[in-house]
């Protein structure tokens, strides 16, 4: 049976951005922002919009197909960014208290997360903690820095991961020992166990050893 193969005429960046979106949707933690990839697609969308507004006449028969593709690309970019914002909303305290997770955000995302946390803290103070009596032994208000104590020790979950390059022996956590993972394997494992494989692309710039599915 013919299985999907690479096509030389196809821009692989679109497929990679789709995979980045799926990774972000499936991972319980926020992942590093795909700065370069998203930047390339944003630039290509801008160039295409320029072409639509300039050299391409209104009656050009190619126009509806260009517009359709632009809609698809805009949707993909929006979906990727919105997923990250939703994660930031959900885990804002966790992210800001962890230097590693915080380093995965863009400057704009850090600003957004900090603004969100301030907003929540002000709301909680105005509606609950600000109304508590001082010195009440039954009430202990934790400072934001103490929130670290409340953070999940293992803020983790089981994910499905496809191995895209032979990874050798990997401890999957769910079993008594490690297993040899080969290209094409799909494993259900704790996110923390497969995260190094997922982020392996960062070091050498090559494709990741694994993707989430």
């Amino acid at each position: 049976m013919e299985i999907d193969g690479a096509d030389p005429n196809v821009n692989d960046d679109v497929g990679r951005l789709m995979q980045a979106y799926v990774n972000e949707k499936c991972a319980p933690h926020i992942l590093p922002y795909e700065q370069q990839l998203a930047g390339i697609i944003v630039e290509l969308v801008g160039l295409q919009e320029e072409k639509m507004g300039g050299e391409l006449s209104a009656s050009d028969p190619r126009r509806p197909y260009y517009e359709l593709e632009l809609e698809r690309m805009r949707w993909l970019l929006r979906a990727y960014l919105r997923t990250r914002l939703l994660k930031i909303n959900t885990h804002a305290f966790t992210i800001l208290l962890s230097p590693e997770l915080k380093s995965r955000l863009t400057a704009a995302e850090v600003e957004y997360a900090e603004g969100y946390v301030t907003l929540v803290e002000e709301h909680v103070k105005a509606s609950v903690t600000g109304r508590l009596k001082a010195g009440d032994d039954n009430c202990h208000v934790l400072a934001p820095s103490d929130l670290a104590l409340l953070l999940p020790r293992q803020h983790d979950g089981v994910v499905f991961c496809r191995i895209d390059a032979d990874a050798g022996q990997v401890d999957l956590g769910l079993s008594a020992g490690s297993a040899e993972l080969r290209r094409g394997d799909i494993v259900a494992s704790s996110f923390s166990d497969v995260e190094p494989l997922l982020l392996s692309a960062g070091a050498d710039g090559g494709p990741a050893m694994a993707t989430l599915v």
Partner: protein
Amino acid sequence: MSFVPGDIPTAEYEFFAENTIVMIVPNLTLPVLEMIHGNFGPFRPLIPERVPLWFALALKKRQRCSIQLPSWLGVDELTKTLEAERRNERFEDLPQHFFEVAHLLLELARDDFGDARTAHSVEGLLADIEDVRHAKMRAQFARVELGAHGLLGVTRLRGLTPIEINRIRTFATGSLGMLKRLRPAEDAQTQPTQTLPAGLYGQQPAFVDDRALQATLQRRR
């Protein structure tokens, strides 16, 4: 609204599948399309061209092409796949968007299957393949539930397509996560914990480090 990992609607899988390259036979003339996805064309009547599925379906909607079905979507090929699926314990390797592409073509390019009887046969074979694979998945996870031995072995699901994984995701990740938490070896290593209601930090229950929290509260007293 809070973030739920792996919450991907079926429509999004179809969106991803629409990037699959297919062969069309156009009945129009178009110069080269310089798209973000790549360059396609030029298009001339009756000259087959490779294009993304979304573009093929857009042309099809305007009755500007016929789509050549992928070889794996023929009745003979699907029959072989079904037989192999029934014969072997492992999952057959299928194209990544096997079910989505087949569904889209059956829905939007049905006339390209030749006649209604062929399209009907293809539908039946696809449903059978899906059922057999689903039964295999159920068997895999039933073994996980019965005992911890071989947990790793049965969680290797080589050959499953993303949309099939999505269908079992909620059940599978929930039960595997619970099995992991209940593992005696892990319990022995952890300090006494207290579980907070789910939802404080997302879906999963947060675990409070009792001793550290008590120490902080003592300091405040």
